[in-house]
């Protein structure tokens, strides 16, 4: 897929995570302004464009934890030239995947049934109002091809900047850490 304009098109998306990676993205601070000149941030939780466009690079934060995530990830993969697993949850499942040692039912019961004084309903997705949880939280690459892995909880702003910079300069970013 070719970029439409001159600037490479960048998107970010968050799945099952804490948004810390996005915050770390914002921690690039004034370099964001520089970045805005060099890339076109087409889609992101930070902007109002909601239908996912065709882009060159997508940073995906978070693990795949529910059925909606699976659907979104498929769209992202289909419309992105490069998919980056952005942060530990996307790369390994991280803390989000700690629930895997327990079953979905146990987790929902603990969170909703046994802590609320009033239980009108439990959001198990049965009524279609919220997405069903997957039985197992999974890292991105178990579901789609991932081109780069950017580790860290979260990756530091410097790491994100260096990574994007390498990518923009046409070089292959190298890994520096695990976890």
């Amino acid at each position, binding site marked *: 897929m070719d970029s439409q304009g001159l600037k490479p098109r960048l998107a970010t998306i968050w799945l099952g995570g*804490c948004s810390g990676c996005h915050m770390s993205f914002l*921690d690039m601070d004034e370099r*964001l302004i520089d970045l805005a000149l060099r890339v076109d941030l087409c889609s992101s939780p*930070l902007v109002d464009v909601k239908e996912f466009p065709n882009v060159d690079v997508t940073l995906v934060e978070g693990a795949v934890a529910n059925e909606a995530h699976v659907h979104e990830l498929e769209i992202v993969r289909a419309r992105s030239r490069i998919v980056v697993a952005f942060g530990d949850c996307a790369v390994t499942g991280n803390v*989000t995947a*700690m629930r895997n040692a327990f079953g979905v039912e146990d987790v929902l019961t*603990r969170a909703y049934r046994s802590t*609320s004084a009033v239980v009108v*309903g439990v959001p198990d997705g049965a009524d279609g109002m919220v997405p069903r949880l997957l039985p197992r939280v999974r890292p991105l690459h178990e579901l789609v091809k991932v081109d780069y892995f950017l580790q860290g909880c979260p990756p530091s702003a410097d790491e994100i900047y260096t990574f994007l910079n390498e990518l923009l300069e046409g070089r292959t970013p190298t890994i520096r850490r695990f976890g």
Partner: protein
Amino acid sequence: MTGRIEINPITRVEGHAKVTIDLDERGEVARARFHVLEFRGFEKLCEGRPFHEMPGIMARVCGICPVSHILASSKAGDRLLGIEVPPAAVLQRRLANYGQVLQSHALSFFHLSSPDLLLGMDADPRTRNLFGLVAQDPDFARRGIRLRQFGQRIIELVGGSRIHPSWSVPGGVARVLSSSACDELKGWLAEAYATVDIALTRLKQILDRHTEEVEHLGSFPSLFLGMVDDEGRLAYYDGRIRIVDAEGNVVADRLDPGRYAKYLDEASESWSFMKHAFYKPMGYPVGAYRVGPLARLNVATTAGTQRADRELREFKQRSSGAVCASFHYHLARLIEMLHAVEKIEELLDEPELKSHEIRAKAQLNRRQGIGAAEAPRGTLFHHYEVDDDGLIVRANLLIATLQNNAAINRAVEQAAKRFVRADGLQEGMLNRVEAAIRCFDPCLSCSTHALGQMPLSIEILDAAGTVVDRLARPDQV
């Protein structure tokens, strides 16, 4: 025509959520609900872990306000140890907390909401964002970015990293704060004051143009809850709970946050991962209350710092009782930022801040520990029960946004009824519904212990549930 409109996703909020709007036969809004679509199950996944690890794990509830979770979690840990935390550690924690209030509020105001306020509710959604703001008003945008940077820098220098710093632990903190760090932070103060001033001035100027929004984006009477110190001043790190009603009367005061379960409780609904909190004596759903900047300014007698108090007095004149317009969360947020900068200045001059006595050690001395702190979005409670060996048996988190859930739902319905017309649906109408949510700066990540984002589509369904109309954003075709 009965039907349902779905706004999915809500953008420029921290999290995964959607709104459904149910229409009656005449095509008018009958009901609107705010659904949070994320869930990670922290209450369960931490079971069996040593309580010493909880600040680290709980930080991951939220990347926007990790410090709040770390503090509430460390404080719960302090209780489990049953010890008094060294003064330097308390000062460091306070400092980081103000840094957090500053960066989080800056994010909410400059990065997420100011596009609505400064570019307009009906502006082109493609540029109605921080980068659009950069293009239109680069200086203002840069100031916003730098104000957030200051807050983050405080956290970084105190805690070792900006996000999820593993520095505050049960018993105190793990790092000594250096003089050079303090000196660097002092260097940021002047610019921070200036930026907050500019933002306050800008916001007050445009309030006149937003009377519709002030009146209809969640303006209703309710209870307000927040922590204050014994003199009724704002207290973010420690304080006791005060609840006021819409008239500004104190309903309850000096409640011990450690006994929150005596007066607060939660309800679950199947249509949202976010639970609903309520004030126990009044029951669910009438006991719903609001927390966060607006609530804190409503419950506080004074801010306790000079410049913020000046703004607070002016703020309180906007209503005879409590300020009930949710739109004024924005203003409250700016006033809190001013207060935070003043407190930061105050703390940086504390000689004890740099002390090397930062951590008290002890064995486990209690089976239950509750820690509370004012997070940017409101009061946050962490409640742990451990076994004889200090492993978590049960954890409960009562999170700020969750306590605003009922209010957000009400605001959404109010906004939808006022602005949404099923015939001739326009994007700007829906953006106002979203703006109602943004007032609360809901951190959905926190409130459901997770976070995400969804594609937007609005579908109008007939009584049988089939789609009769679908509204796409202009760029979506």
